[in-house]
């Protein structure tokens, strides 16, 4: 474990050093990442400022859901979601072989070499929105915080599972960086209270594809009114994680080393 951590930190150090070659652009990128992530909250604010609302949700409750979603993404994108672009680019360029010959698993090496320094802006943005929204709401109790932390850990595991799945797709669907678009379009549902969607959509995003777990489910626990189907969402997330790892292994077997 300690060795793995040391290897990971070496990867982080290398990625940061490399990005610092253009530090002006880097800091601007961090700032922009922060602003880009604020698009959905801005729409929410504009909707509420124009006198409209999501029925049954105050502005800060809706923003808390988005804060949780963006916080999760903010942790995932820099620290482990880089496996997606890293795998896609390496498979296309033929450099994925280099990960296969290392004395560590290819998945771990894809995470280590996929640290994305720019995406730290997402983390700052998510943490800021989460804190700002929470400060405008009644403070949650200790029990609610504990439940939230447990669910948020599952949110991160689910995001990891999405990353592994998309990276697995990248092994066979050569060079298609648009897997990010597919991910973003699907998980866009997670930015809003699950209750505003129709019943069939709620069932899909809670009990079939783990999307509500990315924002709505953990946030509602913090608000003291847990979403119906929370346990089902947790179960589906674990199944999805197991499925994604199996999928990765299956895709790895299909890797033909034909890039370059």
């Amino acid at each position, binding site marked *: 474990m300690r060795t793995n951590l040391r290897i990971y930190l070496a990867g982080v150090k290398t990625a940061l050093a490399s990005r610092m070659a253009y530090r002006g*652009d880097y800091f601007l990128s961090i700032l*922009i990442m922060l602003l880009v992530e604020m698009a959905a909250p801005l729409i929410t604010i504009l909707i509420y400022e124009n006198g409209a609302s*999501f029925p049954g949700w105050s502005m800060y409750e809706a923003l808390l859901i988005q804060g949780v979603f963006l916080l999760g993404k903010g942790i995932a994108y820099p620290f482990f979601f880089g496996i997606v672009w890293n795998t896609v680019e390496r498979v296309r360029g033929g450099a994925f072989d280099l990960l296969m010959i290392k004395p560590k698993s290819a998945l771990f090496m894809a995470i280590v070499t996929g640290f994305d320094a*720019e995406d730290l802006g997402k983390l700052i943005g998510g943490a800021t929105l989460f804190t700002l929204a929470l400060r405008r709401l009644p403070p949650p109790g200790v029990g609610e915080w504990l439940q939230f932390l447990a669910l948020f850990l599952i949110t991160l595991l689910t995001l990891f599972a999405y990353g592994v799945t998309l990276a697995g797709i990248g092994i066979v669907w050569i060079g*298609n960086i648009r897997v990010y678009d597919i991910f973003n379009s699907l998980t*866009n549902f997670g930015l809003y209270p699950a209750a505003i*969607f129709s019943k069939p959509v709620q069932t899909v995003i809670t009990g079939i594809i783990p999307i509500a777990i990315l924002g709505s489910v953990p946030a509602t626990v913090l608000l003291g009114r847990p979403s119906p189907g929370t346990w089902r969402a947790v179960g589906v997330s674990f199944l999805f994680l197991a499925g994604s790892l199996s999928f990765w292994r299956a895709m790895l077997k299909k890797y033909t080393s034909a890039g370059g």
Partner: protein
Amino acid sequence: MLSRSGAGKRISHLVNVLKATALSSYKEWAAYRNQMAVSVFVGPVFFLTQMFIWRAVYATRTTLNGLTLEEMLTYYGITAVIGYLTYDSADWNLQWLVRTGGFLTFMLRPVSHCFYAFAEKVGHRLLALLVEVLPIYVIFYFVFKIKLIPAAPSWALLSLALSFILVFLTNYCIGLSAFWLTRTEGLRRAFLTLRDLSAGMLIPLTFFSEGMQKVLFYLPFQFITYAPIRVFIGHYELAGITLPIPQVVALQFLAVVLMFLLSRILWYFGIKRFTGVGA
């Protein structure tokens, strides 16, 4: 007479370059048509989210900022179609060429890079018309029942064409900044975010405060998406100003001319800084 024939030859040469480059770009990207076809899934899924959001918002009202639910969904439907029609990567391409030194080869060609890049975009978007735009249009029309039929087709087409050129020119200006900054990823993202926001791609501009609407009115970005959508719908209003459609299109044309001049100025100063570093 001589000069007229010279101009004719020049135009004919440009048309030939446009055709040849667009065709080669079309063929090149046809190899990656599956990547483009992802939009047929992504576009409608994004739209589906919008549909649920706005249905929830309109649950307790019939209009919001003068728009009914149907008009709001039409707004987002047209936004998606315009987005796919005018999508552009001239900024990224140019900064990549400058950074890697590949731009050097363009200095040796008897064609301006700007025109070449525009022709590439024409080919790329012609393919997108078949692979992305038409399927999405059909899905919106038949699945979501969004009737994307312009109020005045000829004005809407003209407005779309101007938007197509304006997106290219604004992006090209951002790409030109690579002559100063070499790596422009941050600036590019900043610009795209601000552009999309002030063009009305994320939300109709009438949702912004009165003061902000006045600022947005004088920026060229509204002519990328907001103005074409308004032309499509058949009535224009922003910051309390109502304009007839021909006037909106005329202003859009003016924005294109101004952006072209800006791109020429940036080129004039930027090209002097090009050293071929990275080649």
